[in-house]
Every structure is written in C-alpha cells, then in structure tokens.
C-alpha cells in the first residue's frame, strides 16, 4: 500500500506491505525488509538488517509526531495546505504581512501605532508568557496598517497582532 506524507513540510512517498511475520517497504527506488513490532501505543521497535531502532510516536488533531534518537519529526496529511512563511507570520490576500502571536500569552505593550513606519527588527509589541517578556519584531521594513490587540489582551497562539504593509 502506498502512502504520501508531509514530513517537515516536504511531500514524501513510501509503500508498505505486510508479509508473514515481517514487512516490506519501498522508498527512494529501493525495497527493504523490516521486522516492525508495536511495543506500546507510543512506541514501535524496528529491526532492518539486524539494526535496531526505537521510534516514539504521538498525535494531536493536526499532526503526528515521531521521535528517533531524541530528534522529533512532524508528519502531516498531504492534503493540508503548505504555508511557506515562518511561524507567526502570514501574507494576507491583500499582500500585507500579518504578524501573529507566536505563543499564547498576554499583550504587555503595543510599541507602534497605526500608519507608523517601522524598520526591520523594530519591536512591534511585547507579549508575556510564563513570566518572560518576548519582543515581537518586524521581519521587514514597512508601514503599520492595522493593530488588532491592545495592552492587557490575552492572546492565543497564531492570533493576529499587527498588520504591516511592506515597503
């Protein structure tokens, strides 16, 4: 059976079939045999050519997480739209840059006003979470188009903070 996944936002294909007491999988034009065993709902044990791997896994509503040798990978469905922008930002349909809260927290201060010009790396707002202040900075030069929050607001992750017109 063939599967397509988004691994770290890159589309990848793999095929997997169960034989008697082992599995056969193909990836990148090569085919391998693997002994795959479910150890617990959160762990599988894989032996390929006598090499042993432990893979931990968990899922939430959007993603499946896999961890090998301490390194975490995120796997998503291929149907999901790929966003090409860094976490906390999004280009709107009008071409403005929407700066979003990178984590849940409380807006301590909005450092700019509408129509103000800002330079790259200028602090736009300060959001506090877990007792630490985090400065939200402009990633480009531009003009403030809209401010969505004010000091004291509680914001969730990905909530719009400020809209910026790049210059």
């Amino acid at each position, binding site marked *: *059976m*063939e*599967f*397509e*996944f988004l*691994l*770290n936002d890159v589309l*990848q*294909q*793999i*095929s*997997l*079939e169960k034989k008697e007491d082992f599995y056969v*999988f*193909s*990836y*990148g034009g*090569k*085919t391998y*045999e693997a002994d795959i065993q*479910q150890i617990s*709902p*959160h762990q*599988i044990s*894989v032996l*390929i*050519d006598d*090499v042993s*791997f432990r*893979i*931990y*896994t*968990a*899922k*939430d509503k959007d993603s*499946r*997480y*896999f*961890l*090998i040798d*301490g390194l*975490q*990978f995120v*796997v998503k*469905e*291929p*149907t999901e739209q790929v966003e090409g922008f860094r*976490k906390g930002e999004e280009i709107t349909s009008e071409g403005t840059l929407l700066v979003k809260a*990178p*984590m*849940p*927290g409380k807006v301590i201060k909005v450092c700019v006003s509408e129509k103000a010009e800002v330079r790259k790396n200028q602090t736009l707002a*300060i959001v*506090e*979470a*877990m*007792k*630490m*202040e*985090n400065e939200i900075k402009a990633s480009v030069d531009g003009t403030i188009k809209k401010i969505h929050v004010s000091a004291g607001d509680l914001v969730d992750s990905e909530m719009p903070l400020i809209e910026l017109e790049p210059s």
Partner: protein
Amino acid sequence: MFKKILVANRGEIAVRIIKACQEMGISTVAVFSDADRLSLHVQIADEAIGIGPPPAVDSYLDMDRIIQAAQKTEVDAIHPGYGFLAENAAFARRCEKEKIVFIGPNSDALELVGDKVRSRQTLEKADIPIIPGMKGIVEDTSTIKAEAQKIGYPVMIKASAGGGGKGMRIVFDEKELTPALEAGMREAKSAFGDESVYLEKYIEESRHVEFQVLADNYGSVVHLFERECSIQRRHQKIVEETPSQALDPELRARMGETARKVMKVSGYNNAGTVEFLLDKEKKFYFLEVNARLQVEHPVTELTTGVDLVHQQIKIAAGEKLPFKQEDLDQNGHAIECRIYAEDPQNNFLPSSGKILYFKEPHGPGVRHDCGIYSGWDVPIYYDPILAKLIVWAENRETACQKMIKALDDYVILGVQTSIRFLKDLIGHPQFHKGETTTSFIQDHFADWTGEKGSEEKQKLVLLAAAFDSLHGTTSGKNFQMTKKEIYSPWLSLGKWRLGGK
C-alpha cells in the same frame, strides 16, 4: 522534628520537597492554583488545598491564602521552595507571627540579603569584593544616564528583589538604557511584586561561580563547594556543574571562606547560595545571596552526598549541623541540564500545551527531578521549567558522555523543549574544554538551528507513519494513498546500510 509541612510551591521543586518530607516521615500539604489541580505535586502530597485562580499573584504569591491553608491543615512549618514567596521577608515575618516555622533564613537576614543594594553596602564594609555599581536603587530615571556613565558601559540592570534572570538586562550604550529600564522594571514587578532595579558594571567574559552554604541556628556555617552556572540564555542558567573547571584548590578555598564570611556578616541561617562573578584574571566579585534552595542544588548533593532539603528541614527544626567544614569533600563530577518548555529554534519562546508523550531517561548516575507526566497540560502562567536532568560520574568526561546519552533517551512529544539544544551544547568542543563564560551561548550558539535529521531517520519516520496508518494505531484519519502498484519486493532488496549506526 516537624510532624507536617506545607510546601508553598509547585512543579518539580514541590515534588522534590514533598519526597524529602516523606523520606523523613513528615506529612505533607500541597497547595495548588486552579491551573494545577492535575499537577504532580498535588497527587503525591498527603493533603492538597486549592488556593485560588491561575495567576500567581492570586494564588502562589498570595500570603493570606497560603497562611490560611497552613492553619487549616495545622502544619508546623512551610517550605517555600524557590521563586514565589521563597525570598519574601514579609512572608517570613508573617509565618513567625503565626507561629509557623518558615524553612529558610530568619526574616532579618532575608530582608538584608534580599535587598541587593543594602547588602552590597554591608558587605563592602566587611571587605567582601563587590562589582562596581550604584549605591542605591534607580529612583529617578532622569539621573540614571549619569549613573550609567559613571559606572561605564556595558552596565547591567538588575532587580533589587530577585534572581533567576527576571528583570535583568545588559545595556551596551545610552540609547538602549530607557527601554531596557522600563522592561526590567515591568518584569521585576511581575515576578517579585517590586519594581526596584539598580545598575552594576557588566563584566564581560566572566564566569558565574556560586557557593552553596548551610548555616544552623547556632552560628555554624559551612560551604559545600562551588557550582559553575555560566551557561545562561536570557540571563537564565540552563546548565550547571560542579566542580568548576576554573577553580584550583587554593582559589576554591578562598572563595569558599569568602562565602562563609558573607553569610556570617549577614546573620544568615539555613541553606543559601553566595553568587560570584569570576573574571578572566580569576578575580572574583560578590554578586548576591540567593536566600533559598537553588534550582541547581542537585549537583552539590551528588558530589558531597549531603541532602540539602533534609538539612534545610533539620536546621529549621533546630538541629545542629552534623558536620564541620573539614568533614566535607567533593567526589566525582555532576552536571545538571534544565529542561524547559521552550523552542530553541524559535528564539527560546515558551511552548505550552499538552505533553502528548513523556518518557524520562534512566540509568546508573542519572537523576531526574521532574514535575510532569504524559498527558499533562503545561500551563502558560508559570515558569517554563519542566524538569531537571542531572548526571554524576567519576570525572567530567564521563559525566558529559552520560548526559548526552541521557538527553538522547529523553522523550517529550507535543511541546517544544530545549533537549536537542542542550545535547549540542554539552557536545560542543568549547564546553568539552571547560571554556564556559556567561556569553557562551551568544558566542557559540547564536545561529543554532539544530539537526534536521539524516535521510536514514526520515526514512524511518515515513516507515513508522506508514505502519501507523496501515494499522490505524494512532491516527483516526485515512491518509491519501495513490493506486500505483508496488513492484515486487523480491526483485531488488536494498541493504539498509554498510557501516554501523
């Protein structure tokens, strides 16, 4: 000895203290905010009392509620842990008034060392070396520029009331001064309920070396050697070790004696830490006293064999110190890594949410002080520390190897953590050489992005995802599959790899 102790804290340190009490046969009372009903410290205590809404000012910092809980449960003593009310002299006084033993220093000493500015003055008179800085707190922001000028840039803004990096800012030139002051004062206010800050000289390329001290109620003061805590990000320690690579026996003895003198001059009792900066010429300066159990206390415990929480409780109960300075010795090497819920690939931003799966490392010489479990929601209201991983080995080399292995074995899925960053840090050649200063992370990890994963690992992840989808073990959704037929697996069996892992 006390019959029952209330632990006025949460997270890993509350768990640590409750376990210590249980080992000593002392009953325990946990307190919890509405955000912490499901936290580990509530589950393991004998009794647990709700003390209000999630924000710390309404719960863990609310003296009335803590005292009420203590009275309701008829405890003999309160252990404040670190942070929250631990260094609050008013709270210590309130406990004294209510005839509840405060497990920490007496309120006079706490007030003195807690006032960073006044303690600097007192200690300077006693010939303790002090970093150049202001004689008082910042009272008038208009004259502050002159003060900074007098000290000479770079200067450090520090909260008068606190530690843990809260309210701290380095300022390299005058135009950064005002915004840094504002931010520092706001953070100090939010963390300690006191916005007082002061300025001192920022010493570059320095090491942070601190001495653990124990003082009983009868004038005996011993130090339990040093901890080096130079590895910091955002002025917050993240890796601590002992012994320090920068100290020889002579300097260690001299700094240790200075630490004891600081405590004697301050009239201090119970456990405390004297922090020093050590500059590149091995000159040391008193920084401040942390008048409480430190986050990094386990490295001292592992190398001296002394349980600091047991000692805190015994001292508070009026017992004498069971050892003299000459009875104490350092054995082997210990390193601690703090595991934070934060994203090192994203400017160390805090990461809250549900811990989908958690599995802690184990093995000889591995200690894990922890306040979390699989399925727990990391709340946004408190410090993002999840756990502390501490290793002990005969020597520093083996301790580093053990730490790297333990970090590799550490599983947290669902929230971002500092684990991979810590692994790269401990494995860094400069760390291996012991070349650690307070700017270590800035110097070597400013552009750190972390490993993306080899092709082999990616292949395994896809295999695991396919296996998972085939059996529907974790996914509730159907993944899209193409209909192309798989070619016969028997024709071209690939060899997994030629070398070892």
